[in-house]
Every structure is written in C-alpha cells, then in structure tokens.
C-alpha cells in the first residue's frame, strides 16, 4: 500500500478538513455495538448467498485477491473500485459517511487513518464477528494499530517495518561503509556530498508520515488517546528531540536532496543513485523494481540506523488493512471477505504480488525468508525486513484526526524544512495547530 506521498492538492486537504467537521460530529451519536455481530455460521451462510459487495481500495494486490475470492465463493460478486489513492480515497469515504449513504461495504484504510474512521463511528467493531481470536495471526505492531479503544476496527493486510535501502555501488565508489548508527549516517551524508555535490544521502522535503515514523523509532510517543475524546499531543518529547537532533544536522548542511518523495524526479534520483539511501517501509522493493528499473542490482537493504549502537529499533511506516463500514447492508458477507483477503489465502496472494505481509505465518515461512531478490543483487532482503518487523518499538498510536494533522505538516514543519531552520520549532508549531484543530472538533486536547 502506498505511503505518505505529497502530491495532494490543497483543495483536497481543505475538503477533507471541512468534511471532518461533520464526520466527527457523529461521535456523539450512540454506537450500537453488539447489535450487528454475526456468528461463524452466519458468515458461512452469507458467503453462500447471492450477494454483491462493494470494496474500495487502491492496493494493486486487491484485484487478484478479489478474483480468487469470487472463484471460491461464486455467489458473492465483488465490485472492486479504486476511488483514489490515500487522501483522495479518505475524502470520498468521509463524504459518503457524512452523507449517510454511498459508502462501500469494505474499505482499505491505512493504519494512520484508521482512528479517524473508527472513532467517528463509521466502522464496525470486528470483535462482534469474533475477530479477537485472529490476534495471534498478525504481528504485534499491526494488531496494535487496528485495536483501538478496546475494539478491533480492521484486519491488517500489509505492514511497513522500516529499514534502510541503500545504493551499494555509490557507497563503494566513495569508500563509505554502511552506517549502523545515526551519527555514522550523518557522517556518511557529509562524506558523500563532499565527494559528489550532486549526490545526497537521502531525500526529504518534509513528509508527515516519515517524520512520525522517525519519532516512533526514536522512542517518542507524541500522541496518546484516552477514551473517545481525550487526546494529548507532545511533539517535544525525548523521542522527537532525538530525531530532530539528527535530522537538523542533515538539514542545516544541505545534505538532503530537495526532491519530493514519489515525484518523477525522485524516481530519477533512485535510478541514477543521486539519492543514495531511503529510510522507508518494507513495501518499498516492489516500487523500486517498477519505478527505478535502472537501479537493478545496485540496491541493498540494511537495518535502520539506531541511536545506540547495537540496540536495534524500528518503526512502522505506512501499511494498512481492510475495514467493514457501518453503512454496509451485508456485514456478515463483508467480514467473510475480510477473513479471506486478510487471512492466510489473501495474504499469500498479496505477498506474491509485491506486498509485504503482516501475517506471522507468511513472515516466518522459509520460502519467504529465503527468497533472493535479483533486483537487490541476490540479497535475501526479507531476512532483514522481517527482523525489522520484530524490532518495531511498541506502544505507538496515531491521532483520531491524523489525516488532517498530516495535511498541515507542510504549513508548519515544512516551513522549517524550507528555511533550513530548527525542526523543533516546526514541530512546536505543528503541535499547536494540531491541538487547536482538535479542540475545534470537540476533542479535549492537552499539550505539553
């Protein structure tokens, strides 16, 4: 699944913001938990009944999954609709939720957007369908991401434990060893840029998803949630400061390529090696293979650098699952689809089509771990990536209005990026703007 791209239109962000007002107002309406659950028998019956399900999602793996599902349950017809990627998708989903009609039965939702929909009463609590017992099938961090306020609001599909993807050829050419700590990473950045002024250790023009993941890895817990409406935001905690301590150095010395992630320029940099590393989620290999063909054989994967030598730490970056909407009239069949798509059968198809799974069985399978990637010069990349999934720092959560918060990242922290200033100041401004918005939406927001 895609992650934090920044091509969004201002209008879309503004629209998302305006609609959120109505969306969260639904918080106050009483939920009807427990009333819509179904037993395993109900679900099995629903899957043998003539039904049409609408599924909204943009992940390319959904198409083969849907085909396999329809082959197994010929009576259930699935309309798979790609209504947009990322924010566009969420805006449409929020529109339909607010309008009270037009929402799909099942929607793909990334982990960072899930609280927004779960807490605004748009999603079915899958506990009512017995999702609780699937807990052990998924990694701890992804299950943690779909468990909110004592409910389970989605089944995980993919995950994005972070790792460092790097250009072995560029490192070799300039005699740079693979950095294991962030200090070494900064030093590598300086050495590389001094040797070749066109080359950068990485690219970053300010990306909310990246920044939050980096704070996550550093041990920060800026967002906490207590009940449905009590939120605290603290972007000045120790973890956040650790990250800015490292990143400020790169920013100040112009060591970050001024290239927006996911742009064609970015792919160009990844192809020709002028962007030498990427700190990004484990789903990246498929995108590298398709977007940066010329980099084939030159990329490698290593664990993410750490703050303390020898003490592995990683974070999740992107990834998401599938949820059942309250508007659905076929909840039992919709949950049956989730069981297939996000269960053993679906996750195999997902992994075979370039996705990075969240299911422990797939992550631990010998064939997955031992797969040699030609693009990565025959490296067994999954060994590194699966280890990263085990090293994810526990205890992270996102805001129930993360989509909005991310949309104003560039207005606040982005300013610090633009002026090569202090990222701490930017994070403070982001915190203030986020808290203010939360208050306006009826949350009780405390800041430090």
């Amino acid at each position, binding site marked *: 699944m895609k992650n934090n791209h920044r091509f969004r239109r201002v209008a879309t962000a503004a629209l998302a913001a305006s609609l959120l007002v109505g969306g969260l107002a639904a918080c106050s309406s009483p939920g009807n938990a427990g009333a819509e659950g179904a037993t395993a028998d109900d679900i099995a019956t629903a899957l043998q009944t003539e039904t049409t399900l609408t599924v909204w999602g943009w992940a390319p793996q959904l198409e083969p999954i849907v085909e396999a599902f329809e082959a197994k349950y010929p009576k259930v017809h699935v309309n798979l609709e790609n209504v947009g990627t990322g924010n566009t998708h969420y805006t449409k989903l929020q529109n339909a939720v607010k*309008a009270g009609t037009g929402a799909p039965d099942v929607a793909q939702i990334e982990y960072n957007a899930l609280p927004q929909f779960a807490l605004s009463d748009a999603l079915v609590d899958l506990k009512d369908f017995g999702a609780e017992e699937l807990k052990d099938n998924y990694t701890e961090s992804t299950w943690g991401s779909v468990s909110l306020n004592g409910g389970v609001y989605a089944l995980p599909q993919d995950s994005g434990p972070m790792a460092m993807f790097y250009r072995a050829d560029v490192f070799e050419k300039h005699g740079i060893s693979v950095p294991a700590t962030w200090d070494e990473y900064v030093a590598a950045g300086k050495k590389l840029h001094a040797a070749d002024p066109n080359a950068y250790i990485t690219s970053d023009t300010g990306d909310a998803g990246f920044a939050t993941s980096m704070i996550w890895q550093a041990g920060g817990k800026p967002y906490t949630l207590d009940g449905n409406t009590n939120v605290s935001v603290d972007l000045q905690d120790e973890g956040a400061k650790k990250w800015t301590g490292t990143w400020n150095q790169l920013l100040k010395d112009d060591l970050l390529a001024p290239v927006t992630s996911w742009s*064609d320029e970015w792919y160009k940099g990844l192809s020709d090696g002028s962007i030498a590393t990427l700190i990004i989620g484990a*789903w*990246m290999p498929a995108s590298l293979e398709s977007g*940066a063909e010329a980099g084939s054989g030159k990329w490698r994967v290593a664990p993410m650098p750490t703050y303390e030598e020898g003490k592995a730490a990683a974070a999740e970056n992107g990834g998401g699952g599938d949820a059942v909407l309250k508007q659905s009239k076929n909840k039992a069949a919709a949950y049956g689809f989730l069981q297939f798509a996000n269960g053993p059968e679906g996750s195999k198809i997902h992994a075979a089509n370039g996705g990075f799974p969240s299911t422990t069985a797939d992550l631990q399978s010998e064939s997955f771990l031992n797969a040699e990637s030609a693009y990565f010069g025959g490296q067994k990349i999954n060994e590194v990536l699966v280890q990263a999934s085990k090293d994810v720092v526990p205890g992270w959560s996102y805001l129930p209005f993360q989509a909005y918060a991310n949309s104003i990242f560039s207005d606040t922290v982005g300013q610090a990026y633009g002026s090569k200033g202090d990222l701490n100041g930017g994070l403070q401004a982001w915190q203030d703007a986020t808290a203010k918005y939360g208050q306006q939406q009826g949350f009780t927001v405390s800041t430090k």
Partner: protein
Amino acid sequence: MSVHLSPAQAEAAATLPAPSPSPASKPPKFPAPKFSARRRGGVTRKRTSILLTVLMGVMAVYALLPLFWLIVNSTKTQSSLFSSFGLWFSSDFALWDNITGTLTYNDGEFLRWLANTVLYVVAGAGGATFLATLAGYGLAKFDFPGKRGVFAVVLGAVAVPGTALAVPTFLMFSQMGLTNTPWSVIIPSLISPFGLYLVWIYALEAVPTEVLEAARVDGAGEFRTFFTISLRMLAPGFITVLLFTVVATWNNYFLPLIMLSQSTWYPLTVGLNSWNAQATTAGGEAIYNLVITGSLLTIVPIVGAFLFLQRFWQSGLSAGSVK
C-alpha cells in the same frame, strides 16, 4: 497532471470579443470610424517596442514550454524518462508504443474515459451553452418584474467558484441518489452564470429591438424569432460561451473526483490522475509514460476545438472592432 482551467479562462476572458454594436451582416452607417481606424493602425506600426516584444516572447515560451515538454516526453519509454534530458528527445522513439499502450492499458479504460468526457462535454457544455443563451437573451430583450433581482443573483453566482459548491452539491445529490452516476457530473455542468451574463450583455447590443419588433409584426412567435433570427445574430456570443463551457467541462476535475467512485464513469482528468497515483503505491506499476502520452492525447481534441471555434469567434471580434 490535471489541467487547471483558471488560467485558460482568464486568458480567454481577456480577449473576449466586445459586444458588437451591430450585427456583422449590417454595413456600418458611418464611414468615419474606418478612416480613424486606419490612421491609428499606421501610428501603431511605427511604435514597435523591443521591451514588449521580448516580454511577449517570454510569455510565449512560458506558455509553450510545458506543451513542448509533453510532446518530447511522450516519445520516451518509462525507463528512458528518468535517464534522459527532460527537454529533448532520447535515443529511442516510443511514441507509437506509448499511444498503443495508453489506448489498451487495463482493457482500454482510456477510451472509456474519453467517451465519458465526450458525453459530459456534449451534454454538459452543450446544455449549459443552450440554457445560458436562452436565459441571457430573455433577460436582455424582455422586461418582467424581478429582473434586477435576477441580475443580482447572476452577478453573485459568477463570483462563486464551482469548487466551493462541490461539497454541498455532493451532499444534496447523495440524498437524491444521484452520486456515482453521469447525472452528478452533467447536471452541475449545465449551470453557467458567467455564460449567461456574457450572452445577456452581448444580446443587449447585438440584437436590435427593432428587428424583434419587425418579426413580431410579421407574425413570428417568440421561439421562432429566437431560433431563426436572434440566434444567428448571437452566434459569436454563443460560440464564445460554448468555448468556455467546453474547455471547463473537458478539464473538469474536482466535481467528478468527488461525485464518482466507479472508474467506469470517470472522465479523462480523474482517470489519468488515478494512473499517476499508481506509482505511489507499493507494488503498483509506475506508468508515467502512459500518463504523459494520455495527457497529450487528452489535450489534442481541446486544442482542435479551440482552433475550430476560433474562426467563428473572430468574426465577432472584427464585427466589434469596426466602431
């Protein structure tokens, strides 16, 4: 990748034909303006300004460079897009492959989107132009109570951007069960306050009340008068409005984006953007070459329409320039 319509609109508005004081067919009553026009022309010819010429040259380059980029890059393959200089051709010429790829990708959904766009343009822009012409003419040539009120409403409506109305319209259409149907794109496109205002002002001058009175005396009904006499006099105004609405509907992005969720009803703008977004998805196929070629194919008809309609439009310009 989507085309913004505001600059095009602004540009077109800047060169809007002045309402002709008399229909083109009617010879000017006084020869004097001709004389003065000629003299003024002579003076202008001497005063060629290097500064202005350079400025216009820069503007021309500014406007044409993206088009040039589009043409150059539509000849490249996905991999050579990133390995060759952006403003010149690469060694491999893949335009035909790209066109074939664009037209056949995903069971030829590009062609489906093209057909949808044509439908929205014909029904939406055509309907909008027709309604604007009828209403503008009616407001210009008939007196009725509340006319000033209508005038105020229309003027106010010109100032409201369509984007601002998109969300309320969505919620309303959602209640009516019209979202995710072609109607949700066509119906809002039928309203063109700007076009109405334009025709209104144009009709005030272009259709002499005497002609209408003569027609009435001869026993023609109002609709017959409109279709057989007035419409011809209004042709330059009509074409201008048609041009605006066609361009606006062809480039319409935001409205279909929020109204439609089924890709089979997408117009080209939204469809191409969904192709573009593919590259930002893990495991998604990057098809920038097809997005670029698709964009090139998308602007060809609109450039064609502009050039074709411009001829009619110029007659309005010259008719106005005599006086």
